[in-house]
């Protein structure tokens, strides 16, 4: 069951999803470090990582007590909600209905807020809280992704490795460039992650309900391909509709 057909998508999904979240957290921590000082940035981030580790230590073993079919069904349903949300946003961003996420803009916004707080006596504390919040909130998503894509097939270790690899890669790039990672093709990554999470969601919800997918784990690739083709067609169709409407409005 745990052949490469299941391990590879698990590691890739965990890596890509975590990569996007770590980039967003990194932007805020970098703003704190460069604007205020590195001490609150490190303390805030460190405390958040401790809280996240505690969440994993507390909730990880509890999941082992849940029967596998119930676990697959419930995690699958949550992954459908989670993945469809990512996919919808990525489609709408690709079409231009909502703006692309801009790390430079997020960095500037956070820097401005920190500058405003800089004169306050507890500026260091507030900067630390900003770093703590960013790492904790983005980290909660990473923890969910790792547990969700890993647990249902007993691949949590591989999913964790994907997330740790994303953290290492983002930190390595961040240390070298020393600025927000605004050139990361975030929407493309979110599109792929949305597709992968929805694929896992459909697959596991089905398995939890007793579906014997043709080709077992290989059907993950088939579900992914169908979702990808349909989503790209949706983007193309919505783009055409918007162009036509814009042309009509201009006449």
């Amino acid at each position, binding site marked *: 069951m745990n052949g490469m057909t299941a391990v590879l998508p698990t590691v890739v999904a965990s890596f890509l999803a975590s990569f996007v979240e770590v980039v967003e957290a990194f932007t805020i921590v970098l703003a704190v470090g460069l604007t205020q000082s590195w001490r609150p940035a490190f303390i805030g981030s460190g405390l958040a990582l401790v809280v996240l580790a505690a969440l994993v230590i507390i909730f990880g073993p509890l999941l082992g007590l849940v029967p596998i079919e119930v676990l697959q069904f419930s995690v699958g349903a*949550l992954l459908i909600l989670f993945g469809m*949300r990512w996919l919808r946003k990525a489609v*709408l961003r690709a079409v231009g209905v909502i703006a692309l996420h801009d790390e430079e803009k997020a960095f500037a916004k956070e820097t401005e807020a920190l500058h405003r707080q800089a004169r306050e006596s507890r500026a260091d504390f507030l900067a630390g809280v900003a770093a703590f919040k960013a790492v*904790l909130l983005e980290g909660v998503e990473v923890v969910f992704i790792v547990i969700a894509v890993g647990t249902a097939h007993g691949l949590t270790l591989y999913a964790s490795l994907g997330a740790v690899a994303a953290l290492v890669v983002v930190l390595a790039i961040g240390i070298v460039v020393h600025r927000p990672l605004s050139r990361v093709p975030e929407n493309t990554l979110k599109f792929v992650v949305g597709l992968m999470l929805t694929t896992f969601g459909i697959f596991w*919800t089905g398995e939890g309900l007793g579906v014997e997918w043709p080709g077992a784990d290989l059907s993950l690739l088939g*579900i992914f391909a169908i979702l990808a083709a349909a989503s790209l067609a949706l983007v193309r169709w919505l783009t055409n509709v*918007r162009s036509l*409407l814009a042309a009509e409005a201009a006449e």
Partner: protein
Amino acid sequence: MNFVRAVVTEVLGLFIDDGNLALLSLCLVALVTVLIKFLGLPPIFGGLLLLLGCLAILAESALRAGRSRR
């Protein structure tokens, strides 16, 4: 308190962005469950229905968002 609210909002926000999308997705999962477990639909057809249903819900949600934000 604000911080706790932010965490709760963030956790809920993991799954719910467009309320309709979330509700329809849950209804789809519930429908497929009922069809397979209580009405004897062969599970593989339930799986296919789940896949097609997700695509239909995604298309409806994206189209609706496109219309409302024009």
